[in-house]
């Protein structure tokens, strides 16, 4: 398989995740879709890393390190994000984005 095939899957995944962020109203689902977007980047990174072979014939592991960091950040972000969403739910009994628009204009 060529690099572009993987990049296409990654791009589609990114677009699907983006769609979810734009159209879903449940905060938790929106958050899942954001995770999808990050993982789309991960997939592209791994395929780029496999594609760029280092002089010794091994994949370019610098890309994989980046994936490592992204996964860590994503996990931390999920923890904090869900804590915020829970706090919001406790205060307002809702996870619908359309209902959090007290501040506007």
């Amino acid at each position, binding site marked *: 398989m060529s690099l572009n095939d993987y990049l296409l899957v990654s*791009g589609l995944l990114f677009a699907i995740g983006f769609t979810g962020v734009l*159209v*879903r109203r449940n905060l*938790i689902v929106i958050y899942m879709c954001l995770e999808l977007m990050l993982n789309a980047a991960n997939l592209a990174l791994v395929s780029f890393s496999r594609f760029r072979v280092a002089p010794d014939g091994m994949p370019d592991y610098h890309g*994989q390190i980046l994936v490592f960091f992204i996964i*860590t950040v994503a996990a931390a972000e999920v923890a904090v994000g869900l804590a915020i969403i829970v706090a919001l739910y406790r205060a307002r009994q809702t996870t619908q984005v359309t209902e959090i628009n007290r501040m506007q204009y």
Partner: protein
Amino acid sequence: MGSLLFNVFALFTLIAAVGVVVNKNAVNAAMFLLLSLVGMAGLFVLLDAPLLAFVLLLVYAGAVVALFLFIIMLLDLKAENRRVVAPTALAGGVLVIFGFSGSLFKILQGFAPGKSLFPPLPTTVEDVKRVGMLLFQEYNLPLQIMATLLLVATVGVIVLSKRELR
């Protein structure tokens, strides 16, 4: 063989991802997220990155999705009985998505290097060792920063979710 597996995993990943977006029930969405991640782990293995595939499953399936599920249960979210998406949001979303994926396809079309096959690897990969060496030697500084980030996240989560703070 490789191309068949790729097609299977890729379709699996994408369909599951669509499942996340369209599912009315948050629990089901989380399960689809898990499936999508499994598919992606498969793709990682195809890309000779077994370590990352393992880490992905461990962190995402083991921790992130579990956390999602846990929170959904905690909040006792029911399946949404209203329409999942607002029509205006849908219109805007569709516009954005088409624009974005259109430009993405166009770039991939013009991306000549990507059309070639992956170069073969000479030996079996020993990515645990390589990644480990890089991570703890060359990438020492970002790793330290990451540690700080995790600390901040920990403190933050405690502060934000404890009922009574001391």
